[in-house]
């Protein structure tokens, strides 16, 4: 446990805790809107993990600078995870919209969003 290891890995620990917080929200909370909040936190932690893996010390943003040129890839941050996560964010808001549609449909039919009451009324 030297100091370099902690400085290099503390962000991963924070991301793991964030993923656990999102999973806790999805498992333990009884309100369905709270479950969606937990799902958003979960998605953000995964996106954050990809961006953390992509970052590179002593490198700049992935837009080609004329003074640096594109000869040495060590000058630029890895652009591939950025691309994948860019589409993942927009897809995540669209899927959250589908979740909202299901939520409103459930509320119109059963009149509640609490999980236990919902399971009782569905019986």
């Amino acid at each position, binding site marked *: 446990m030297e100091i*370099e*290891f902690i*400085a*290099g*890995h*503390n*962000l*991963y*620990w924070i991301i*793991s*805790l964030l*993923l*656990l917080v999102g*999973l*806790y929200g999805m*498992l*333990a909370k009884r309100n369905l809107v709270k479950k969606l909040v937990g799902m958003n936190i979960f998605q953000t932690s995964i996106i954050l993990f990809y961006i*953390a*893996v*992509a*970052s*590179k*010390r*002593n*490198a700049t943003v*992935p*837009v*080609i*600078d004329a003074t640096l040129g*594109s*000869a040495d*890839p*060590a000058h*630029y941050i*890895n*652009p*591939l*995870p*950025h*691309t994948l996560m*860019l*589409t993942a964010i*927009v*897809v995540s808001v*669209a*899927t959250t*919209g*589908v979740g*909202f*549609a*299901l939520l*409103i*449909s459930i509320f119109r039919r059963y009149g509640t969003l609490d999980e236990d009451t919902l399971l009782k009324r569905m019986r």
Partner: protein
Amino acid sequence: MRKISLIALVLFGALLLYASSGLPGHGDPDGPSHRERSRVGSPVAAAHYIRHAQGDAASPNIVTVVLADYRGFDTLGETIVVLTAGLVCTLILRRSP
């Protein structure tokens, strides 16, 4: 909250913390995805993209070039996923009761 889900959550967290110790350090320039060649000698995609993006598509923003040119088929799939999500919303909410 039931006890078994709490136990599963704690075990999952311990597994995540254990697995993250095997990753390269944050911002390490010698990480596996930042190298020119992988461990078995095949070229890594990111270095190729950074080298050739401006020459191939005349645009300095590498993310845009990878998004729409090198991986354009992937983006087509994502667009269709977004469109499908909109259609599903319409089908769920505007259905006559």
